[in-house]
C-alpha cells in the first residue's frame, strides 16, 4: 500500500511529467488559456492515460516479451494509445453525450500527447508490475492535470495583467512555466 502511495506522490509532485520530465508540453501550452478547457483536458487525459498504461503493460508482458520483441514496444504502444483514444471517444459519445461535449474536442488531441507514450515506455524500463503500472499512469495523469489547471489559472490572470509588450502572450507563458518548473524542483528528495 505504501509503495502505491509513494508512486502516486512521486509521479504527481516529485517526477511531475510536465514540469520535471518535460513531457506533454504541447497540450500544457496549448490548452491552458482557459480554466474550463484545462479541466476538460485534465479529465480526458486522466481517463486515457490510466487506460493506455494498463493496455500497454498487457501488450508488453503478454505479446512482446514472450516473442522477444521488446524493440517493437514504441510502435506497438503508439498503436495501443491510438486505439484506446478512439475507443474511449466512441464509448463516451454513446454513453454520456454531456461528458462528450466537455471532453470531445480534447480526446483526439491526447493521441499526440507524448506523456502518454512516455508513461508506457517508462513502465517497461522500470519493470513495473501490473498494479504499479496502472498507479503510475494514474499518478502521471493526476500530476499532468494538476499543473495544467494551476498553469491555466495563472494564465487567466496573466491575460489581464500589465505585461510588458515584448513578453505578451506565449512569451510570458513560457516564463511562467519555467518558474513553475523551478518551484516543483523544491519537491525533489521528498520521496
Amino acid at each position: 500500500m505504501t509503495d502505491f502511495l509513494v508512486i502516486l506522490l512521486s509521479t504527481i509532485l516529485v517526477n511531475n511529467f510536465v514540469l520535471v520530465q518535460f513531457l506533454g508540453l504541447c497540450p500544457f501550452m496549448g490548452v491552458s488559456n482557459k480554466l474550463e478547457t484545462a479541466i476538460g483536458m485534465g479529465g480526458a487525459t486522466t481517463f486515457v492515460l490510466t487506460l493506455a498504461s494498463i493496455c500497454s503493460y498487457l501488450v508488453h508482458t503478454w505479446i512482446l516479451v514472450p516473442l522477444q520483441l521488446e524493440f517493437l514496444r514504441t510502435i506497438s504502444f503508439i498503436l495501443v494509445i491510438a486505439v484506446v483514444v478512439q475507443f474511449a471517444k466512441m464509448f463516451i459519445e454513446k454513453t454520456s453525450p454531456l461528458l462528450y461535449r466537455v471532453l470531445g474536442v480534447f480526446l483526439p488531441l491526447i493521441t499526440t500527447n507524448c506523456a502518454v507514450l512516455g508513461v508506457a515506455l517508462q513502465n517497461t524500463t522500470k519493470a513495473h508490475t501490473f498494479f504499479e503500472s496502472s498507479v503510475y499512469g494514474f499518478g502521471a495523469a493526476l500530476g499532468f492535470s494538476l499543473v495544467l489547471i494551476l498553469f491555466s489559472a495563472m494564465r487567466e490572470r496573466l491575460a489581464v495583467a500589465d505585461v510588458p509588450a515584448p513578453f505578451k502572450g506565449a512569451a510570458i507563458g513560457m516564463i511562467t512555466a519555467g518558474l513553475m518548473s523551478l518551484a516543483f524542483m523544491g519537491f525533489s528528495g521528498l520521496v
Partner: protein
Amino acid sequence: MLEFLSQHALPAALVALGGLALVFGAVLGFAAVRFKVEGDPIVEQLDALLPQTQCGQCGYPGCRPYAQAIANGDAINKCPPGGQTTINAIAGLLDVEAPELDAEHGEEQAVQKVALIREAECIGCTKCIQACPVDAILGAAKQMHTVIADECTGCDLCVEPCPVDCIDMVARETTLKDWQWELPSPNGNLIATDRVQGAAA
C-alpha cells in the same frame, strides 16, 4: 509455430504487429457498430423540451434548428412560447444557470392564443397558409380559409402576411379536457398568519 517465431525475429515481428493491428481493428470496428450514435442525442433531448410551435421567434426556422443551435452554444432564452418553464428545463438538462427570457424575441404569453380568421372578410389569398409553420390553416386560392384550432400553436406568424387583416389572435377556449383549477394568487391571504399580519399592518 511459437518455437519458429521465437527463433526468427522478422516473421515474429510481422505476426505480432499484424496480429495486434488486426485485433485492434476488429475492436474498433465492433465499437463503431455497437456504440453508433445516430444524430446528436443532445439535440434530440433539447428538441423534446422545446414547445414545437415552430414559430421561428428565436430566429431559427423551427424548434429543431434551434435545438441544434443550442447544442452548438447558442443562448437558451430565445423561446417565448416555452417561456421560463422551458428555459429552466433546458438549463437543468445542460447544467447551466437559467437566464431570464430574452425580451428581444418576444414576451411570454399569459394565456394560450389561437388564430381565428374572420371568414366573411377572407379574400382567399393563401398567404397565411404559406406562413403557417404547422399547416393548421385550411383553404385554397380564392376560397375562404379557416384555422384548425387543435393544430394551431398560437405563433402569430399568419397575422402579419394577411392583406386584409382578418386574422385575430384570441384566447384558446377552455374545454372540459384541459380545464384546471386556477392557482391561488401569490399575494392572497392563504394561511392564518397572512391575515393577522394584514390586519396588523
